[in-house]
C-alpha cells in the first residue's frame, strides 16, 4: 500500500549566473509515500526551496536549470514533461504554499478571485460554482465569515489569514502532493501554532502527501513523519522524525540539534558549529561540511561521502560510518 507518490533521484538543479555556477541542488534523492509527510530541514541557502521549485518545475530559467536526475511523480518523470503538461499538474495534483504570505498573493485581486482561478482552470467549474468552492475552502481553513472575506483583498487580511488563504488555494483542487515552503516562518508564534494546527488537521482530512520545508526543527518535529536534512545542496541525512532527534547520525545534524536553545531543557552553554555556510560559488571539495566538522579527516576533504543506510531506514552521508574508509559499507 505504501506506494511511492514522489521520488527524487539524484536531482541536480544548477544556477548559471554571471559569477559562476551555483549547484543549488546537487544530487538530492528522497521519496515520499502517498499520503505521507516529509520534512526538509537545513540552513538558509542549502537548497530547500530550489528542490521544491524543481518539483514544481518553477525554477526561473535562465539562470536556473534542472541539469540531471529524475523527479518521479506517480511514476512519471516530471523533469521530462512538457510545459503544457506541467501546467495541468501544477495547482492541481501538486500545489505549493510559500513562505511570504504578505507578498505571495496578488495585491490587486480579491482572495476569492485568486482561489477561483485555479478551480476554474483545473476543475472546469463555472464562476458561480468556483466561488462556492472558494468559500467552502475558506471555511475549511478556518477563516471566519468566509462569505464576506472571499471578496476582500489580501491587504485587508492579517498575515495569518493570508497564509490560510494560501493554504485554501493550494488545497482547492485536492492535490495529491502539497509542498509547504516555510509556511510559518514569517508568522508569530501564536499564529504559527494556529497554522500548524490547521495543517495537522487538514492532513488527516484531505489526505494529501506533504513536503514541509523549514529551518525550524521544532516545526518538523510537530508535523511530519520523515525528515531529510540538507546541507549545501546535498542530503546529509534522512530518516524518520524520531530517529533524527534521538540518534542523529551526521555531525551536522548533531551540531544543529545541540546548538539550539530549547524550551524544555536547560543548558549551561550552547554548542556551536564553527565557521560559516560555504559559498555556493566555491563549494568545498569532498564532504561539503568538512571545513566546519569537528570530526573531519583527510578523506573528508577529498572524497564525497555516499549516503549510507546506517540503520534501518536511517541514511547519513558521513565517512565516520565507514571509519573513514571510502569503500567500507555499513549494515
Amino acid at each position, binding site marked *: 500500500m505504501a506506494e511511492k507518490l514522489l521520488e527524487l533521484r539524484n536531482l541536480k538543479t544548477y544556477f548559471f549566473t554571471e559569477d559562476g555556477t551555483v549547484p543549488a541542488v546537487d544530487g538530492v534523492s528522497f521519496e515520499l509515500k502517498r499520503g505521507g509527510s516529509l520534512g526538509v530541514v537545513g*540552513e538558509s*541557502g542549502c537548497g530547500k526551496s530550489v528542490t521544491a521549485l524543481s518539483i514544481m518545475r518553477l525554477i526561473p530559467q535562465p539562470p536556473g536549470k534542472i541539469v540531471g536526475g529524475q523527479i518521479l511523480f506517480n511514476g512519471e518523470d516530471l523533469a521530462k514533461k512538457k510545459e503544457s503538461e506541467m501546467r495541468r499538474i501544477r495547482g492541481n495534483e501538486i500545489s505549493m504554499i510559500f*513562505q*511570504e504570505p504578505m507578498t505571495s498573493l496578488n495585491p490587486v485581486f480579491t482572495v476569492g478571485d485568486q482561489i477561483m482561478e485555479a478551480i476554474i482552470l483545473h476543475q472546469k467549474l463555472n464562476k458561480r460554482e468556483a466561488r462556492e468552492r472558494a468559500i467552502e475552502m475558506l471555511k475549511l481553513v478556518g477563516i471566519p465569515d468566509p462569505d464576506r472575506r472571499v471578496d476582500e483583498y489580501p491587504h485587508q487580511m492579517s498575515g495569518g489569514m493570508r497564509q490560510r488563504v494560501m493554504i485554501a488555494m493550494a488545497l482547492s483542487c485536492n492535490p495529491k502532493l502539497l509542498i509547504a515552503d*516555510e509556511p510559518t*516562518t514569517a*508568522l508569530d508564534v501564536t499564529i504559527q501554532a494556529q497554522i500548524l494546527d490547521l495543517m495537522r488537521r487538514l492532513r488527516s482530512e484531505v489526505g494529501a502527501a506533504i513536503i514541509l520545508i523549514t529551518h525550524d526543527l521544532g516545526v518538523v518535529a510537530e508535523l511530519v513523519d520523515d525528515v531529510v536534512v540538507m546541507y549545501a545542496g546535498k542530503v546529509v541525512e534522512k530518516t524518520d522524525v524520531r530517529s533524527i532527534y534521538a540518534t542523529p547520525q551526521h555531525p551536522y545534524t548533531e551540531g544543529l540539534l545541540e546548538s539550539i536553545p530549547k524550551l524544555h531543557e536547560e543548558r549551561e552553554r550552547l554548542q556551536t558549529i564553527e565557521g*560559516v*555556510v560555504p*559559498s555556493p560559488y566555491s563549494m568545498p571539495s569532498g564532504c561539503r561540511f568538512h571545513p566546519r566538522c569537528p570530526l573531519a579527516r583527510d578523506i573528508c576533504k577529498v572524497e564525497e561521502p555516499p549516503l549510507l543506510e546506517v540503520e534501518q531506514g536511517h541514511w547519513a552521508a558521513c565517512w565516520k560510518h565507514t571509519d573513514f574508509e571510502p569503500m567500507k559499507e555499513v549494515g
Partner: protein
Amino acid sequence: MSASTEAAAAGVVVKEVKGKSLGSDARRRFFRNRLAVLGLVITVGLILVAVFAPYVAPYDPMEQLAWQDPALSLAAPSWAHPFGTDLYGRDLFSRVIFGTRISLAIAVMAAVVTTAIGITLGSLAGYFRGWVDSLITWLINVVWSFPFLLFVLAIITIFPEASLTIVFIAIGVVSWPDIARMTRGQFLAARENEYVEAARAVGAGDFLIIFRHILPNILAPMLVQATLAMGAYIQLEAALSFLGFGVPPPTPSWGRMASEGQNYLFSGQWWWSIMPGIAIMITVLGFNLLGDGLRDALDVRQQTES
C-alpha cells in the same frame, strides 16, 4: 516580521561571503554592460574633446573664412572641412568641437545648481522632518507642478537678455524638485536604517550622521539622477535655442547651431543643422546610456515611487 528579514538577510550571507567590495561589484556589473561602456566612452570622449578643444579643432570656431573665399560659405563637408562650413565659412567641425564645451558647461553647471539646491532642501526635509519637511515638500510640489519647459522659458524671459548663466540658473531653479524629492525619500529611508540609529546610539551628532552616514549612502542614486539629467539639459538647451531663448551668439552652442542651420536643412545644406544635431544626439545618448548603466550597476531602483 523579524523572521522574514531573517530569511532575506540570510539569503545574502551566502552571496556575500565571497567578499567582493560594493564598488568592484558595481564596476564589474557596469563593465559587463556593453551599452553602459559605450555611454562611458562617449562621455569621457566628449570631456576630452572639450578640454582639448583648441588642439583638436583645426580652425578658430569664430573665424569667418567666407570673406576671403566666398566659396567657403556653406561649403559641403570635405577633407578640409569634415562637417562643412556655415554661411560665414566658419568651420562647423571646429564649432561642433568647441560646442562641446558650451553644452557640457550647461549640462554640468545646471546639474550642479540643481543638485545643490535639491540636495540641500531634500536633506533638510528628510532629516529634520516636521514643519521643515512640510514646507519643503510643499515647495517641491509647487515647483513640480509647473510644466518644465514653460517654466524655464518664463524665467528666462524675466531677464532682458539671455546668457549662459541665466539659462542654467533657470534650469536649476525649475528642476531641483526631482533631486530634492529623491534626496528626501532617500533620507527618510536612510534615517530609518539601523546603522543611522546605531550612530545616534553611540552619540553621533546631526552633522556626522548626515555627512558620514546618510549622504555617502545616497550618492549612487543621485549620481544616476544627475547623469540622466545632464542629457536632458543638453536637449533643453537645444529646445531653448530653437525657440530663440538659448545662449546668445556667436557662442557655438550646439542647440544654437542646429537651429541656425535648420532652414538650410530644406535647401540642401543639411550639414549646418545635422552635424550639431548629431552631436547633441550622441551626447545625450552617452549620458543616457551612462546613467542607465550606472543605475543598473549601482542597483538603484527606478524612481517610480515618490
